[in-house]
């Protein structure tokens, strides 16, 4: 795949009153053309800094950023401004011009680029149609809902014909229903215009909904790079596990014994795994939490199971599951 974005050994520190804060250290990854790529991490992990480095809103201290085979750090001011027009960005807080109409907001990037007013208007109406808001052209942002504002922001991005779309927590201020429709729209745009999309989020559900591959950031470091499916089935790092467990948003039960994570695929969701386990050993296990999510259109389930205190019995149970079932089983040491 042609690498649209290529980041190597990126580092960034900030000076603050309490000393130097390392926001990013030695982060490298590549995003292929047309891919929907996720960057996930808890707040403070460095996601926002990383995405701002991609269009140089934030200047990295070290490392190299290649966008479409051009070294971003080599560009002069003017060339950088032209390059940025090819990299659209949408934000958590939408960042629309509050004193301008919706139409003027969508015209804005074209106005900057020197497109004539009448042509800009015509195109803007087309893009508003794409996001389903053409009847709101004369309204002001304050009259729109959050989801509608984000749609306007997306139309505004499309107006500059970008090759890349950066989404910085673009759905974090929206309710689940609206989040879904915005993610659908981003998916559509990715397909329709073949725009490479980078999604920054702290929500596993967002990544699961639209991304192909993703990286996990923790404390400014790249903890894990994986396909979304693999990440969900076999999270390799504790950072990834924490994000996946957090995504269930459930009340933590008091658990003392050993905890097992069982991941299902569509094919084995009909298998009565837990029931068989209990019948086999005649000893109860405790289901701590369980959920099903959709990853790229396929159902994936996970279940956290607390095993009996008897260590030998627990070992046997694990061995049984691994041998007799097709589910993914992994013992979890950092379950809280």
């Amino acid at each position: 795949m042609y690498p649209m974005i290529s980041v190597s050994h990126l580092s960034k520190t900030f000076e603050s009153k309490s000393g130097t804060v390392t926001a990013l250290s030695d982060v490298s990854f590549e995003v292929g053309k047309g891919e929907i790529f996720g960057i996930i991490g808890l707040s403070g992990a460095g996601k926002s800094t990383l995405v701002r480095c991609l269009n140089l809103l934030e200047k990295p201290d070290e490392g190299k950023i290649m966008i479409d085979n051009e070294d971003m750090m080599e560009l002069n001011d003017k060339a950088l401004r032209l390059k940025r027009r090819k990299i659209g960005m949408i934000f958590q807080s939408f960042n629309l011009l509050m004193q301008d109409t919706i139409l003027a907001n969508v015209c804005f990037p074209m106005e900057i680029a020197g497109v004539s007013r009448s042509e800009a208007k015509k195109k803007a109406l087309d893009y508003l149609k794409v996001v389903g808001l053409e009847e709101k052209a004369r309204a002001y942002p304050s009259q729109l809902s959050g989801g509608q504002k984000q749609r306007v922001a997306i139309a505004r991005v499309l107006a500059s014909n970008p090759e890349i779309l950066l989404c910085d927590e673009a759905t974090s201020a929206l309710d689940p229903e609206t989040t879904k429709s915005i993610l659908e729209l981003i998916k559509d745009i990715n397909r329709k215009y073949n725009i490479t999309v980078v999604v920054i989020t702290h929500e596993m559900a967002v990544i699961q909904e639209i991304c192909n591959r993703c990286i996990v950031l923790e404390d400014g470091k790249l903890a894990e790079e994986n396909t979304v499916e693999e990440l969900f089935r076999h999270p390799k790092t504790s950072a990834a596990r924490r994000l996946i467990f957090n995504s269930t948003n459930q009340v933590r039960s008091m658990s003392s014994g050993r905890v097992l994570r069982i991941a299902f695929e569509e094919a084995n969701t009909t298998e009565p795994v837990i029931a068989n386990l209990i019948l086999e050993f005649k000893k109860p296990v405790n289901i701590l939490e369980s959920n099903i999510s959709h990853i790229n259109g396929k159902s994936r389930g996970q279940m956290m199971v607390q095993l009996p205190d008897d260590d030998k019995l627990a070992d046997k149970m694990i061995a049984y599951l691994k041998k007799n079932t097709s589910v993914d089983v992994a013992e979890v040491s950092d379950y809280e």
Partner: protein
Amino acid sequence: MSRAEIMMIITGIGETLLMVFVSTFCGYVFGLPLGIALYMSDQDGIRPNRTLYRILDVIVNIGRSIPFIILLILIIPFTRMLVGKSYGTIATIVPLTVSAIPFIGRMVESSLKEVDKGVIEAAQSMGASDLQIITKVLLKEARPSLINGATIALGTIVGYSAMAGTVGGGGLGDIAIRYGYYRYQTNIMLVTVAIIVILVQLFQFAGNRLSRIMDKRKNQ
């Protein structure tokens, strides 16, 4: 009051309005760029420049801390150089403008600071130049607040223009001092003071109204 006195007061109103509007306008011609420069060079600004900010900051502070009545006398040579004399309505416009510039600059700076940083970032991410950000984002987004600032500036300058009366500055303040204070014609003083109060009220009312109409964030 005699006919002549009434005519005099009407002329006074005209002179006051002339002084206030011309010096507010001139104040913005210099104060607006000054405010923009302060905003841009601030350390949280778009082009942080500590030296430039410090210099502008000190000049503005000095300008604002000199009492108007002192400034009026202090810059008499400058006024004379510019308009040929140091008294009268036209001459008063010079010190009024000079004292308004730093005041307006500060007000513009604080209006621009109210503009959401995210919107500026969005414009930068679209490849906007600094000039485009100033004209198409900052001044537009800050418009209601800038109008509020201009309203305050007008009111303050009305007050200053009245003070200029002490040195023969013309306008309503001049009349209030000459007739009301030196000649003990209290009625004339009260009328001129009332007119000045009404002027400030009108400016404030019109400014608030305009700012509200212009603000698209609410009342739509």
